[in-house]
């Protein structure tokens, strides 16, 4: 049997006392080394799905769960979260909710201490993680004295330092400027090059399309579409029906090109295909 990084089968979840299911019969698979982007309107169940992949649901958040989730070879429902720390890491949407320590370096050290990384190795990992997210020099600062964007990057560094097989991030760039956003996506890309698998929830379609191998579209708890960015955005009309948009270049091409099979989804590709059309 082929080894998958993530395998979700008929996942259904309902919060206690809720009137309906937040996740409805979701199934998808992701290979090792792939980056998955999850999109959908607010309230679609994106964060709930991330919490289920991490095992926070059902181990710390109650509810009725059905189906199967295998992450990095482990059956998430059957193993406690503490047994899964090296399999997957999750960066929360609100970094303030994740930071707990007195200084930036202690914050990164916290998770490492929990998994028993020796001191010498810990120092190395802290340095590397802070370097990667552009927070070198901030070691002694209080996490609470950082800007929203810096907190967001610290939260990423703390999870990254633990070197989980699968890195999951819930809207990790909302407070970052374009440079900071690119940095996060570059981190994701470099992790990918090292064979790490990524899952990212994001509203910014243009960047997502550039860096993701697969996209999962959620709407009211259901998986509407799953495929490569090209497959997803070639059906722009369907996305619009669910109040989503495509990358700007895709929206233009969809309107003016006759051949809907040739719709570009990233900028470089768009420059080429528009040039070709204008030359014709």
């Amino acid at each position: 049997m082929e080894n998958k990084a993530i395998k979700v089968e008929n996942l259904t979840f309902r919060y206690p006392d809720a009137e309906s299911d937040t996740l409805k019969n979701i199934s998808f698979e992701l290979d090792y080394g792939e980056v998955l982007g999850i999109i959908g309107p607010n309230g679609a169940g994106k964060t709930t799905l991330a919490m289920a992949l991490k095992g926070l649901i059902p181990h710390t958040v109650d509810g009725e769960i059905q189906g199967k989730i295998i992450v990095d070879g482990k059956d998430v429902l059957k193993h406690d979260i503490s047994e899964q720390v090296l399999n997957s890491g999750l960066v929360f949407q609100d970094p303030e909710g994740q930071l707990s320590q007195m200084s930036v370096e202690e914050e990164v050290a916290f998770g490492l201490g929990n998994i028993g990384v020796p001191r010498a190795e810990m120092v190395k990992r802290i340095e590397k993680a802070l370097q990667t997210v552009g927070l070198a020099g901030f070691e002694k600062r209080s996490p609470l004295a950082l800007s929203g964007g810096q907190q967001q990057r610290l939260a990423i560094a703390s999870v990254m330092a633990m070197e989980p097989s699968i890195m999951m991030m819930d809207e990790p760039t909302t407070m970052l400027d374009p440079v900071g956003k690119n940095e996060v996506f570059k981190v994701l890309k470099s992790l990918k090059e090292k064979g790490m698998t990524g899952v990212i929830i994001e509203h910014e379609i243009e960047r997502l399309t550039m860096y993701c191998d697969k996209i999962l579209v959620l709407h009211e708890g259901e998986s509407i579409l799953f495929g490569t960015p090209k497959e997803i955005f070639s059906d722009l009309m369907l996305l619009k029906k669910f109040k989503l948009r495509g990358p700007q270049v895709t929206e233009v091409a969809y309107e003016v090109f006759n051949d809907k099979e040739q719709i570009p989804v990233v900028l470089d590709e768009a420059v080429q295909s528009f040039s070709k059309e204008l030359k014709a």
Partner: protein
Amino acid sequence: MSAFLRVENLTHIYPGKIKALESINLEIGEGEVVAVLGRNGSGKTTLVKHFNGLLKPTKGNVWIGDMNAKKHSVAKLSAKVGYVFQNSNHQTFLPSVEQELRYGCENIGLDEETIQERVERVTELFQLEDILETNPFDLNSTQRKEVGMASILAIEPKVIVLDEPTTGQDHAGSERIKEVITMLKEQGHIVILVTHDMQLVGELDCRVVVISNGKKLADGAAREVFKDKAMLKEASLEPPQVMTLAEQLTSFGVNDHVLTVEEMIKEYKRVKKLDINKQLQTS
């Protein structure tokens, strides 16, 4: 007549001698929408916090109408300048949405009839009818953001500062915020946005002020300012994706003035049509 909001030679130095703003001059008139752009830590938020007196100038002055912001309290200025925080959690604290909406109005001493009128108006605007009794902390991030905005709009301040209004919003949420901004502009309010959302700026087709390292790097219409590539690079800004596309197609006669998807579609059709006409003439 001078502009309603005036920033004169504003310098701000934080404790520890950190210079956050240096000699900023700015005039913003009624009905203007201005997007303040720049990197994290460039001084954008420091600048706008002077408008409602949350920060006081180290040097220079900020005028709100005939009020010198240096000489008035936040409480006094808040009737003229409303500030919607980036993180709505920092702004909401009352146990129900309705109380949250009333709070600012009560603070500036409005009578009960006016308060009810205003709460009703913003409730309708953001369609909050069904959640008036709900605790703001039980709402999702989109709704909480809208409650944050509604509670400020209820005060009807002349100037409205929106700190990252579209952050974490889905497409539908962003569209609604854009509509509200356009409505406020038409009503003669001054709307000041602190944002990284270049698509929003493009669609609003508004004035932009670029801040980098505490200094004003550029000030003008987005369409013009975004043409200055060297400046954008210095400020670490990226124009909307369609503008970059247009720029790379100028050799085909495409005008790089486009700010939105709609404008790019029009521009492409125009160039394509010229092309066909040319072919017809030569054949």
